[in-house]
């Protein structure tokens, strides 16, 4: 094999070459055509796997204990935890509306619904605070406490980030200037928020309805 000497101009001249002119292509695209869409879904895969691992740890630890939850381990009052879940679930509606409206850039609709989402998410963060202060055990009380507080920690982290993201986004929508390609980001942010909602609904369901789900299992 011979080694080619360096050419003065290393890039082949396009004279006589056919060219694909892409200058007229759009500057953004929705859905899976957009690289950032992949970024967000991959992030959801990562975070989702973490939640799944935590939930699996819960079930695994549960299987190794004779009494689960331990005697006297009182969760936060159902009314409080359920209202957080309810708020989160309600927030899906304005999120979905804004998600649709983003497709054809109806700014007013988006602004209105994003304000709603932000307010509801702040309210959910408020009830979350109530939850945290009314849990009847600590993370260092027992393994059950550790894993449930683990759920709370992980999710509150996401919830706060979500609220922060909603706030910033809403501010951006009002401060402007709003570009067309922000509509793509708007939809991605909605997808992420949806993930935050769904993840908690499942985790909450797991530890709240524990006795209902596992009542029949016996220890050998």
């Amino acid at each position, binding site marked *: 094999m011979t080694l080619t*000497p360096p050419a003065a101009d290393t890039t082949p001249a*396009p004279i006589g070459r056919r060219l694909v002119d892409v200058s007229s292509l759009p*500057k953004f695209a929705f859905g899976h055509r957009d*690289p950032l869409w*992949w970024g967000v879904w991959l992030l959801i895969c*990562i975070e989702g796997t973490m939640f799944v691992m935590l939930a699996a740890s819960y079930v695994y630890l549960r299987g190794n204990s004779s009494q689960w939850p331990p005697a006297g381990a009182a969760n936060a009052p159902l009314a409080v935890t359920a209202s957080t879940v309810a708020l989160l679930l309600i927030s899906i509606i304005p999120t979905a509306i804004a998600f649709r409206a983003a497709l054809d*850039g109806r700014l007013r609709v988006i602004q209105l619904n994003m304000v709603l989402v932000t307010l509801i998410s702040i309210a959910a963060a408020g009830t979350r605070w109530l939850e945290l202060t009314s849990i009847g055990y600590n993370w260092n009380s027992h393994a059950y406490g*550790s894993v449930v507080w683990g759920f709370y920690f992980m999710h509150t982290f996401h919830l706060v980030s979500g609220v922060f993201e909603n706030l910033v986004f809403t501010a951006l929508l009002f401060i402007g200037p709003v570009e067309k390609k922000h509509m793509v980001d708007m939809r991605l942010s909605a997808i992420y928020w949806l993930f935050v909602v769904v993840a908690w609904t499942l985790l909450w369901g797991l530890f709240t309805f524990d006795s209902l789900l596992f009542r029949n299992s016996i220890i050998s």
Partner: protein
Amino acid sequence: MNDQELHLRLSATWHKPTGLWGWLTDNHHTTIGKRFIITAFVFFILGGIEALIMRTQLALPENHVVSNDLYNQLFTTHGSTMMFLFAVPVMEGLGLYFVPLMIGTRQMAFPRLNQFAYFSYLIGGVLLYVGLFGNFGPDAGWFAYTPLSGPEFSPGKRVDVWAQMITFTEMAALGGAVSIIATVFKHRAPGMSLNRMPLFVWGQLVTSFMIIFAMPSVMVASGMLATDRLIATHFFNKAEGGDNLLWQHLFWFFGHPEVYIIFIPGTTMMSTLVSAFTKRPNFGYLGMVLSLIATGFIGFGVWVHHMFATGLPQLGLSFFTASSVLITIPTAFQFFSWLTTLWHGKIHFHSPILYSFSFIVIFLIGGLTGVMLASVPLDWQLHDTFFVVAHFHYVLIGGAIFPLLGALTYWFPKLTGRLMNEKLSVVTVSLLFVGFNVTFFPMHQLGLMGMPRRVYTYLPNLGWTNLNLLATVGAYIFGLGSLLFVLNALISARIGVIAGDDPWGGADLEWATASPPPAYNFLYVPTVRDRYPLWSMEPDQPLVTGLATDRREILVTKLMDAEPDHLYETPDPSISPTLVALGAGIGIIAAIFNPWGVPIGFVLAGLGLLGWFWPKPPHKELLEPQP
């Protein structure tokens, strides 16, 4: 506009900032990729030095080179360094550098994420070594089994350092993986359908997916360990309902795929080298791709074979053996494909192909001992002995380091513009090959003679002395080889033969641009008509034009067939990602001493993120408010 003008304009737009400020702000994939590679090699050398100290200690029975306390820190740091700070980052670094070049684009999908990943990695690595040099290096093994690593049996800050280092490096690996997947899916040059991607790119893609699903598990585990230690949670505390085997399940659910995360890029480098130096496409492209995917898939199902000795359900053992043996089949396919390619190709003997031959001789042993270890009865005897040490060094050094060094020799011109010294390379590969086998082959025998792993010394009358001495001699030869490689790289980067664009007559697009590539990678983005674009390039192969020259615009194509889809602007250099990494770093390191570090780091990182994502002018295509 003629080419010269285009070159000037693109150079200005894609200008890489220089100096310290540039170091903190540049996000170009070649810069980040190169940084990953160089930093990883620094850690490789550190890990190697640790290995040599350990080998010196074990050269003679009842030796006193280091204390048992230091020895335990050394082997823990060695394992953690090689896995978390060398193998994964160096493979990802090569991916960051070469994937965009091989698929014909100017930049990765999320350059700022890469920048963030690099600084996370750096902080994590430095943290580990500050620990080691400050005599609070972790000493519970790279696997950190609880309860040994728990608050009761490892008081002090040592294991905390390990747990936080894990969090950091995994964040880095995850960031890189997300970026690589999006880049491979969306940035390919027009015409490069999935079916035409170079195998190396496939390897990076499969590896990245494995990272996405494996690493969260260890992050959860290390998080639990950290809270057990810092705020007295009870995840692994039996007395309060926790469970020690939970750690092992979570750890090995990550730990086994980790091996393939390192090995898969190795095999695809092997494919690249075999094809490049036989001037022949690899046999069975589809089979090769499916092998990679099957390996990735099965890699998630076999973690339990690290736990055969824990007393698993008897029934399960034959199932676990079966699934562990199953993973041999895709690897065997790759072996047969290389063999066939060599047979039908025209072999050009240059130093990179010698690394490939070493791979074959060495890795094959590692693979076959792997089949032995998959057998439960044999594993009960061999597990946690030096036989296993020999096995996984044969697999990881044979399967990943040899092809890596070969690939670096092959790609060296693309990284530096110059060729590595051929004669020195031949000496290097010979030293490495001999040194490696002299070091690790006797370890099989040692394992069969009953020598357990992770012992800082042994008694003189057990008959292990001679083989240990031999292994130590080999380790020094191997060390010499590694040193020679590094020296050769340093020297050749300055005074090596100027390589030109395509010194080897390579097949893939990275050879279609200058060496090293200009900041904009390609003057015109190329188009592709099959799997080996440069071998089948016709004079009228179309080029892409129409990308903006005044901003960093790149072409996004469709996932399956790489049809031009839309244009995407990648961000300019910025300090924000570095600040986010730094903020998270302050928080997580502070958390070792006080749990409030976590929220503080969270807030700091959040502020950095605001700067990262806040849109900057000029604003284009404004959205008119509709009635």
